[in-house]
């Protein structure tokens, strides 16, 4: 495969453009001082509905959407790919339940992370530490998924080679650019680039979903081609079909549990919390819940690009001569569009992966600084030191993600996101239930978390059904008692909950001290204008006494 020079040039120009923007972003809305965690990590908490919309969109619709989901559709059809559509549908009603309360309590107490809230609500450092560690761990495979997306684009352009170093060099360059501008500008960089990214992506998608179906004879033929491919015997195991065009009854729970588990997991991730808290008033998040579904429609159409690639006969051949499903969408563009537009599309995908990767690494860094560095390592740290540590940890998080890319199998990159979900879901009882009730006992929540983490990790590591690769080859496993495959993360959450409820009953009966709650009921409804609530949080109070 030779290098597509025109596409590469366009890609480089776009990339350079957003890099300049990234560095310029530090000057946007002229913060007096970037050297505090609130300014660097939350953009001063002053974003309105439109900026928040772009920022959340940048979080939610990522290389996951543009590379991994269509790749899964192309490879094995609906169950492993199209579940992303119901996932992003049920997501908004779910987050609607708790976004307002989360915003209010965070702005009353100056919370930057979910672990801050858990600390304030339960007064229990081990519980908030568990939440913080889980957030950092779970973010790494999610960032890894973004890096896989960038790598796919670069590989189809023709960069890289068969040697290990040449293959990963472009990835390392992209990684370095990302790290550099995130380091200097903080959250302002991805928020600003998110505008460019979305405009590029809308153009590319609009062209792709209108032009490509026309070129290949309409949707009917496309769906028929997909149905035929999914029904044909699998190349790896001829006794089973390649995939599922429509989930069969035994696959219903797999489909629904992947959607539900992913939706519940998403807003537990540090980066989504960051975006939510950086909005300027209580209702911004909810207003966004009503308008963000516009992205879900795009997601559905993008997923179907995987089926268009089946009809088009796209062959996602890697530079190493092996089939790599992750390359299918970049390859589809390269095969059927002029080089300059291919470059624009690749730029959109690459920037679309960079923005969330930056946001994710910043959020994970906030978690570390607030809830580990300041809580345990150096309680006396001042604002400048906090910001400094955050910047360094955001680099370390990205390096961790790089390790996931280099060490784990990239064939099914969607698994990276689902693996992060297995872990992050285990923090849901402490965070979300905590927003509504203090009934749960702190030690029961901690025990439930531990059991859920262990169960989920063990099953995901090697206990999955129909794994072709280990470790972490598949996110589905037989659900005990149901005898059908389901999302491991959701099963682990149920185990977690059972432990938490039973132990809570026991510990409450024994009247074991349930920690000190520094929040009041009023805190959960506070809005801009109420005492101690500021649209822009300037002070940085230590929350760990």
């Amino acid at each position, binding site marked *: 495969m030779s290098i597509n020079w025109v596409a590469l040039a366009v890609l480089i120009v776009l990339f350079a453009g957003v890099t300049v923007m990234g560095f310029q972003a530090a000057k946007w809305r002229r913060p007096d001082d970037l050297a505090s965690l609130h300014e660097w990590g939350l953009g001063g908490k002053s974003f309105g509905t439109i900026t928040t919309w772009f920022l959340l969109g940048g979080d939610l619709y990522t290389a996951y959407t543009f590379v991994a989901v269509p790749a899964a559709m192309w490879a094995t059809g609906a169950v492993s790919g199209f579940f992303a559509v119901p996932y992003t549908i049920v997501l908004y*009603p779910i987050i*609607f339940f708790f976004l307002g309360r989360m915003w209010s309590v965070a702005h009353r107490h100056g919370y930057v992370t979910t672990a801050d809230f858990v600390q304030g609500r339960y007064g229990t450092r081990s519980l908030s530490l568990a939440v913080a560690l889980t957030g950092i761990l779970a973010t790494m495979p999610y960032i890894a998924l973004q890096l896989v997306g960038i790598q796919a684009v670069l590989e189809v352009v023709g960069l890289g080679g068969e040697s290990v170093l040449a293959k990963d060099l472009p990835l390392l360059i992209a990684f370095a650019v990302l790290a550099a501008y995130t380091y200097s500008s903080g959250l302002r960089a991805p928020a600003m680039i998110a505008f460019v990214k979305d405009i590029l992506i809308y153009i590319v998608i609009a062209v792709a979903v209108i032009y490509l179906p026309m070129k290949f004879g309409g949707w009917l033929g496309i769906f028929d081609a997909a149905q035929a491919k999914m029904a044909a015997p699998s190349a790896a195991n001829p006794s089973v079909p390649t995939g599922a065009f*429509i989930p*069969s009854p035994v696959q219903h729970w797999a489909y629904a549990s992947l959607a539900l588990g992913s939706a519940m997991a998403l807003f537990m991730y540090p980066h989504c919390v960051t975006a939510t808290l950086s909005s300027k008033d209580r209702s911004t998040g909810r207003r966004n819940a009503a308008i963000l579904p516009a992205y879900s429609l795009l997601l559905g159409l993008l997923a179907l690009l995987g089926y268009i690639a089946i009809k088009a006969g796209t062959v996602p051949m890697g530079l190493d001569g092996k089939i790599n499903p992750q390359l299918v969408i970049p390859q589809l563009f390269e095969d059927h569009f002029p080089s300059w537009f291919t470059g624009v599309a690749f730029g959109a995908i690459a920037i679309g992966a960079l923005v969330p990767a930056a946001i994710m690494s910043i959020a994970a860094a906030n978690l570390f600084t607030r809830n580990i560095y300041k809580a345990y390592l150096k309680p006396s740290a001042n604002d400048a030191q906090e910001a400094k540590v955050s910047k360094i940890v955001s680099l370390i998080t990205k390096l961790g993600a790089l390790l996931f890319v280099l060490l784990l199998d990239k064939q099914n990159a969607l698994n990276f996101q689902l693996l992060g979900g297995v872990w992050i879901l285990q923090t849901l009882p402490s965070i979300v239930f905590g927003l*509504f009730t203090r*009934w749960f006992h702190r030690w029961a929540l901690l025990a439930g978390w531990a059991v859920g983490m262990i169960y989920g990790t063990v099953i995901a590591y090697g206990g999955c059904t129909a794994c072709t690769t280990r470790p972490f080859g598949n996110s589905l496993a037989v659900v005990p008692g149901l005898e059908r495959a389901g999302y491991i993360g959701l099963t682990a959450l149920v185990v977690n909950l059972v432990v938490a409820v039973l132990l809570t009953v026991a510990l409450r009966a024994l009247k074991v001290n349930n920690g000190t709650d520094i*929040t009041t*009921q009023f805190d959960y*409804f506070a809005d801009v204008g109420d005492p101690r609530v500021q649209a822009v949080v300037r002070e940085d109070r230590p929350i760990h006494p």
Partner: protein
Amino acid sequence: MAHSNPAPADDGVDADPRWKLTATKVVVAGLLLVGIVVPLLVSTYDQIEPRLFGFPFFYWYQLLWVFLAAGICGLSYFLLKRESDAYRRHHPIIPADGAER
């Protein structure tokens, strides 16, 4: 999701009327639950016919739910906003904070 109403551990006087369930909140919770549960009932849409513009039912039905879910969230937003605006009108003075620490 639980809506129980225990007083926080350290503070007997801490109470906010908005913590209580209201008719509006029940309606909103019901609406949102519809938006969560119905799109996950795979057996209600796991079929090919009827097609729409070549899309099998399975695919277009789920894309249709994108708009229904947006509508549900929009309606919920409106209902909760109406309730909280009314509360703010009747409580022009911010309730005693009582949270000085």
